[in-house]
């Protein structure tokens, strides 16, 4: 058999049917469902008199609209509440393997709970009506974000109809420097290939740097594949993957576990397998990153400066930069460390897992949030993350420093609940998108790692976390 990529293996082992023009039907193992992109899909099923093909594939939760405090008061906003209740009703009517509704102690962001429950397993095809489904690729899965029509299609047929995207490998070699994390790495990758650089591709992250990352770091990396334009990102299976999954709720047990592990070990790219494009990075060159604009590609290093559009020759790009700087209220050549902040958000499916909280807690332990910061908040990715953090006393570390410690959910990543920036406010955020208005109309988002967000909270402006004792 010719040398195959991990991606080829995942694709071929799920291929149900292929048309002459290359349109394929790909079988879907895991369907993650949340309240925002599913109501119209369930409505479509109902109108057509259809039923979900395999209820056991569905794992559902409410995360985007849910409040992060005063849970006993329920969801205030009636429009949000109706959406969450609609999901409750749809799951009741159509069924699911498991549902983590609002107020469940294991509820959380869909991309956090899938892996932590062992509902995301190597070799799976995973879809969700959410672009950050790419996160699950960290487990050697083929994971795609899909739209509502596709959600309905998968519900009704257990398949996706699509053409195979091309394959890209991103090689990263060498150890990451102290204070440099998976978030900095993916931001650096996006800075290098651009926010459309991965369009039309599925990315495999490979190389010694990736091997050395924890599962949580790999999830952060794969999460932002979509910000690089790619619909899917993945990492090959190794001991780290298998170790992470052992004993999780929906992971196989006993003899089945051994059989599964033997199969999972094959989920790597064969030596010499062909990729349509290969990009290489030297981990030693990666510095802590901060975005300065309104697209994740508008990123620089913490010791850098806001760029000057005048130096950009391409008129479309120049105009784009000028518009971004105007929106962000930044002057060209401002030093990144001179940018003062109003709010700090540690959370979102990019960086709200236990390791993220541990790193951030270490930075703030025994210190105080700067008085100029209006709000610094930590929103754990799930109820289980929250419980673990509390067991370790991290909540106390954060609250003693002046952070608010909230209930899990998407929160200020996109502000569908009350957690929003006010117009003009500037935020250091561990989320994944810095688009105009993303965290609230007129709000200004700078994407950073949890360590960098924590350090910025203490200083009131960006600082190089490597220089914080």
């Amino acid at each position, binding site marked *: 058999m010719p040398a195959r990529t991990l991606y080829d293996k995942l694709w071929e*082992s799920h291929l*149900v*049917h292929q*048309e002459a*023009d290359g*349109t394929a*039907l790909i*079988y879907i*193992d895991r369907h993650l469902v949340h309240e*925002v*992109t599913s109501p*119209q899909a369930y*409505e479509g099923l109902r109108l*057509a008199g*259809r039923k979900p093909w395999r209820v056991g594939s569905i794992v559902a939760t409410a995360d*985007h*609209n849910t409040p992060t405090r005063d849970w006993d008061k329920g969801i205030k906003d009636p429009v*949000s509440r109706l*959406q969450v209740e*609609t999901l409750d009703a749809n799951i009741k009517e159509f069924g699911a393997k498991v549902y983590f509704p609002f107020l469940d102690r294991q509820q959380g962001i869909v991309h956090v709970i899938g892996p932590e429950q062992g509902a995301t*397993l190597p*070799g799976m095809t995973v879809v969700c009506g*959410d*672009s950050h489904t790419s996160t699950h690729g960290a487990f050697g899965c083929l994971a795609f*974000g*899909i*739209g*509502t*029509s*596709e959600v*309905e*299609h998968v519900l*009704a*047929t*257990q*398949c996706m*109809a*699509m*053409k195979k995207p091309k394959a890209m490998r991103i090689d990263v070699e060498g150890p990451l420097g102290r204070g440099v994390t998976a978030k900095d790495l993916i931001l650096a990758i996006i800075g290098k290939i651009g*926010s*459309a650089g991965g*369009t039309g591709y599925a990315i495999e992250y490979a190389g010694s740097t990736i091997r050395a990352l924890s599962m949580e770091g790999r999830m952060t990396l794969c999460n932002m594949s979509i910000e690089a*334009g*790619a*619909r899917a990102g993945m990492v090959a299976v190794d001991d780290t993957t298998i170790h992470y999954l052992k004993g999780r709720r929906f*992971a*196989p047990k006993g003899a089945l576990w051994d059989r*599964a592990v033997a199969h999972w070990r094959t989920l790597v790219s064969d030596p010499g397998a062909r990729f349509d494009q290969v990009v290489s990075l030297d981990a030693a060159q990666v510095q802590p990153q901060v975005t300065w604009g309104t*697209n994740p*590609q508008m990123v620089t290093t913490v010791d850098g400066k806001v760029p000057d559009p005048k130096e950009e020759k391409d008129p*479309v790009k120049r105009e*784009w930069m000028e518009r971004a700087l105007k929106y962000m209220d930044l002057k060209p050549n401002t030093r990144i460390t001179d940018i003062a902040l109003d709010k700090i958000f540690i959370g979102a499916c990019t960086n709200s897992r236990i390791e993220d909280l541990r790193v951030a807690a270490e930075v703030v332990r025994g210190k105080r949030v700067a008085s100029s910061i209006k709000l610094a908040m930590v929103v754990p990715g799930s109820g289980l993350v929250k419980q673990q953090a509390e067991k370790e006393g991290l909540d106390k570390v954060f609250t003693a420093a002046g952070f608010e410690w909230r209930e899990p959910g998407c929160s200020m990543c*996109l*502000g*569908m609940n009350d957690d929003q920036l006010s117009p003009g406010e500037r935020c250091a955020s561990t989320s994944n998108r810095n*688009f*105009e*208005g*993303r965290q609230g*109309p007129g709000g200004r988002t700078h994407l950073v790692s949890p360590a960098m967000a924590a350090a910025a909270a203490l200083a009131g402006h960006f600082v190089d976390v490597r220089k914080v004792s």
Partner: protein
Amino acid sequence: MEKFVRREGLVAPMDRANVDTDAIIPKQYLKSIKRTGFGPNLFDEWRYLDHGEPGMDHSKRRLNPDFVLNQPRYRGATVLLARDNFGCGSSREHAPWALLQYGFQAVIAPSFADIFYNNSLKNGLLLIRLDAKAVDQLFRETLSSEGYRLAIDLESQTVTTPGGQRFQFDIDPFNKRCLLNGLDEIGLTLEHADKIRAFEAKHRERQPWLF
């Protein structure tokens, strides 16, 4: 889905690269559980001077006179001319819904984000990729002549300018067939139900832990 055959319509220029789905339809409107009603909120933050929320009477809000779609000459536009990486960001299908419900039937740009591209075609919004040079020319012509219209023929995969110049575009034959015939993709896939069932049985045997 409505059939897309030959369309001819007024062109509006959206001269920015990387227009993301948060800009196309802001998050507060994603709380809806319906498929309709998004048209008034297309580009909401750029289009209005005040902040919009679901349930408002949007016809009473203050329009931003500087926003291109608010210029009288582009009223009734059905073709949107855009720049690179249009539709990047989230998977919200509300983005193509909003564009369609506003009245757009086609978007022309040098490139589109992947998920947005699929979402659009599934709803009968035709996305046309033309090379950057052609798009530049269309921008120039749209800006310089009021009432500029383009004819789009999906059958022959062409865009024709008022001057009679024709640009050929590519589209996947499967998507083309679905668009031309207004086909129900779920119905098409279910024609293979036996194959899916057979695959599923084998898959379960090979990897029982996935079930």
